[in-house]
């Protein structure tokens, strides 16, 4: 069942004294997939980081999230992998959440298979190629079975087969989860996403709403809780 997951109102975010993003109103419903498109410097990454709730808080305005923030995961464009094995990386968020060891192994294997890296558990993360590193980061995010998955340019640096697999994965994940991904490729965004949000020079230019969630007006959401870092 589709429900409101995010409600943004009067958002303005500054970095080094310069306004980098302004979003008057925006509602995101899930499950489903939302693409954020725009040129370099349009504010795509900033929007995703603000949605993550743990990395940045807006200079002014409100970003409300109706679910537990720990069920929101962001995969960076250039993800950092810890200096450990692939399994150590994918299992990190499970370890943080004290998931029992026996359950971790199974979930790590499933997540790695989902991104096409089955059997990579014991490999050192530092020996992987760029594309493999991005896929490990994706596995590290989906292993949590998040409610919201934020992907910053997930197709960057991936070859044709890997992009096809990624597209399939986004579509599969968006059945149970809200997947918000940024992209330069408008055609891919339109093909994959149920909704496309356009940003330009730090401003919301518009967005389609094919599965019912308009950009405005903002619906009432009594259970909405502000995102604050723990």
């Amino acid at each position, binding site marked *: 069942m589709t429900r409101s997951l995010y409600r943004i109102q009067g958002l303005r975010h500054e970095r080094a004294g310069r306004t980098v993003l302004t979003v008057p109103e925006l509602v995101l419903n899930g499950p489903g997939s939302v693409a954020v498109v725009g040129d370099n410097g349009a504010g795509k990454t900033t929007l995703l980081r603000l949605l993550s709730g743990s990395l940045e808080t807006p200079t002014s305005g409100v970003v409300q999230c109706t679910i537990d923030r720990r069920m929101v995961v962001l995969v960076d464009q250039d993800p950092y992998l810890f200096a450990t094995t692939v399994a150590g990386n994918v299992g990190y968020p499970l370890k943080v959440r004290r998931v029992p060891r026996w359950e971790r192994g199974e979930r790590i294997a499933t997540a790695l298979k989902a991104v096409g890296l089955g059997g990579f558990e014991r490999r*050192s993360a*530092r020996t992987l190629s760029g594309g493999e590193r991005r896929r490990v980061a994706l596995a590290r995010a989906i292993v949590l079975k998040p409610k919201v998955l934020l992907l910053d340019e997930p197709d960057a640096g991936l070859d044709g087969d890997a992009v096809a697999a990624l597209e399939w994965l986004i579509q599969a994940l968006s059945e149970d989860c809200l997947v918000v991904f940024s992209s330069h490729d408008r055609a891919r965004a339109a093909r994959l996403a149920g909704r496309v949000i356009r940003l330009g020079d730090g401003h919301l230019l518009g967005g389609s709403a094919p599965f019912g969630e308009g950009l405005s007006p903002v619906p009432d959401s009594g259970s909405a809780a502000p995102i604050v870092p723990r």
Partner: protein
Amino acid sequence: MSDGVLHAFGLIFSADPELYRVVARSLMVTLCAVVIAGALALPFGYLLVHGRFAGRGALVIIIHTLTAVPTVVVGLVLFTLLSRGGPLGGLDWLYTPAALVLGQGLLAFPIIATLVRSALASMDVRVLETARALGAGRLRAGLTQLSEGRLAITAALVTGFGRVVGEVGCAMMVGGNIEGYTRTMSTAIALESGRGEFSFGLGLGLVLLLLALLVNLALQAMQGRAGIQGATVG
């Protein structure tokens, strides 16, 4: 001179009991000092990087300055504190191994804290961000960062060890160089050389060099292994 070197090797390979007693005591004192100083310097170094408090900049300068304080000055201050009329005289630690540990710990602390701070400050900012984004709380994210910097931190501990294991000034002043009790490698070298017993001093000097070599080899091996293998993230 060559006779002295040969005699020194003879003492090492014949497992001269007095020589190895001094070596064992030195190692024990320095290891204790580095473990205690390291346990305090790690969170202190982390605070110097991530803490938000007034006077942080001044504290960084003070800690940097303390790395250059002559060991004999630390020995003198500690002697004043631990002597019978001093504020810590009641502990009755002067001329005991505890005083040696305290002295070496005080010398090692600023060195380790400075190196840990530098290591953490130069780390990829994405380490903390990634840990936080994956649900780690502040403490867990901090431990993860320390784990990611484990090689640099180990190097800091090794450097601290190397700097204090051979110091003479402080050990002489607060340890008193008492045979069988507070005599360390460095104070023994100073004493035996003063007596003209160069071979014993040379033997200890060679052991010190060998220790430095082994510690550095171990560090190199760790760094090499970390490049191809992983370790557990905290």
